């Protein structure tokens, strides 16, 4: 009886946190959005000024541009975005290690930057089209990336469903023995799927960062190609760091929840099942997200000014 008490309290606390989050998140979120909008405007103006400075005073002013771009990257990542939702849901419900989560954050941020560079270089230099056309190419890439989100979701659902249907759940050989260090082991299926990782990477990274494209187009117009590319890579690094922070938090939260739940479940079997159900739910959420983003992107008319 005495052992049951703290468990009840922990459960109660979890439910309370869940309720508080759903009630308070809306207002806090809106405040955050309003603030990020103001900050973003100021950073954009500062970036334009920094680019002009490079044009006028030469490469040394590039240091200012690169550090500002880095800040912009960190900041941009702190705002809302589909990549972060995918990463949080993916890492929160699938069995991935912290190291791979962090790698995913950095790789996807870098890919976003590289895709932006290839988009602008491709349309302006190679195809000799107008900068306006980069927007259309970026829109296509965005759709591709949303489709990849849906594909990732479907793959995760399929993988989890296979695990659930199997007589002996995959990756569940360990018996729980109450120590902190083995908590991750209950989750199924086993980590290390390159396909899921690759799909997650593409679903986030294929969509070129709009801020990066803006900076590149202005840099190219001012004939500052190297400075523009350096700025975008600095942005990617900033974004990577911020998203890696999110990935770390998510993995710790997942492991803590799984550790706490592990105390309720003596032999770890139920927990493994729950892990698989969660993985399935995560896959469903990601599928729904991808499909709704794709639908919104396809049905959205072109912006009248682009």
């Amino acid at each position: 009886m005495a052992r049951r008490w703290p468990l009840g309290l922990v459960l109660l606390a979890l439910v309370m946190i869940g309720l508080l989050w759903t009630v308070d998140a809306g207002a806090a979120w809106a405040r955050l959005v309003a603030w990020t909008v103001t900050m973003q405007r100021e950073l954009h103006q500062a970036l334009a000024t920094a680019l002009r400075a490079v044009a006028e005073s030469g490469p040394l002013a590039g240091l200012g541009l690169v550090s500002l771009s880095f800040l912009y990257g960190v900041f941009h990542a702190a705002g809302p975005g589909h990549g972060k939702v995918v990463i949080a849901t993916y890492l929160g419900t699938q069995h991935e290690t912290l190291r791979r989560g962090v790698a995913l954050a950095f790789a996807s941020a870098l890919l976003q930057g590289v895709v932006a560079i290839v988009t602008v270089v491709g349309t302006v230099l190679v195809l000799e089209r107008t900068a306006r056309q980069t927007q259309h190419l970026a829109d296509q890439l965005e759709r591709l990336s949303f489709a990849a989100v849906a594909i990732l979701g479907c793959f995760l659902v399929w993988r989890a469903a296979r695990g659930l249907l199997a007589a002996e759940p995959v990756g569940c050989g360990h018996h729980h023995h109450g120590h902190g260090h083995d908590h991750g082991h209950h989750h199924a299926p086993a980590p290390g799927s390159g396909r899921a990782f690759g799909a997650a990477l593409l679903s986030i990274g294929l969509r070129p960062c709009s801020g990066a494209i803006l900076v590149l187009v202005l840099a190219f117009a001012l004939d500052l190609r190297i400075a523009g590319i350096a700025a975008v890579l600095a942005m990617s690094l900033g974004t990577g760091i911020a998203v890696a922070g999110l990935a770390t938090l998510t993995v710790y939260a997942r492991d803590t929840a799984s550790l706490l739940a592990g105390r309720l479940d003596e032999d770890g079997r139920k927990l493994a099942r729950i892990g698989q159900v969660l993985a399935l739910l995560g896959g469903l959420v990601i599928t729904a997200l991808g499909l709704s983003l794709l639908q919104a992107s396809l049905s959205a008319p072109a912006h009248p000014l682009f």
Partner: protein
Amino acid sequence: MLHRTLLALACCLPATAALAHPHNWIDLGTRLQFDAEERLAAVELDWLFDEFYTAYIAEEFVASGTAPSDFLREVAAENLANLREYDYFLDIRKDGERLKLGDVTRFETEMRGERLALTFTVPLAEPIAPGADGITLAVYDPTYYIEILYAEGTGPELDGIPPERCKSVVMPPTPDPEMVSLAYALDMTQTAGDGLGVNFAEVLTVQCP
């Protein structure tokens, strides 16, 4: 477990809003033109685009700061034609009801230093007297991809009416958290996040008692 699922679902809602984040800015100027009967007949809008948008449009001319006027006119005409179905981002209301607008009557475009400028005049379908209750006027991109705010330190100008006749006040945007959350949530089911921008719009009220 449940709260994590809720959390994951809650995260989904604002996802598409990322697309609606402003990425370009316009410094706004407005001139309200009144007719002889002191009715609002037309609004002249002055848009000063940011350097990034300027680079999109006039990449070849950004470095020099000058662009051929026929090129700029062509782009401006195309943009205004596209903007027609959005009422040129101009939202004028009397007693909360949105007033009908006509087609642009005249426009000018130029490079103003490093930035592209577009000035155009939108007539009201029927001139309207603001009266004591007044009218409201807001200029915003409904998708909020572009943020449009009065240039710092400027406000609306009233033309063709004695300055003491009317009182005009610009209210800064007051995005009510609940409204913003709602707008973001609606994003999932409605197209292109229409209805988001209005929450971040400055609203001009003109009263002529």
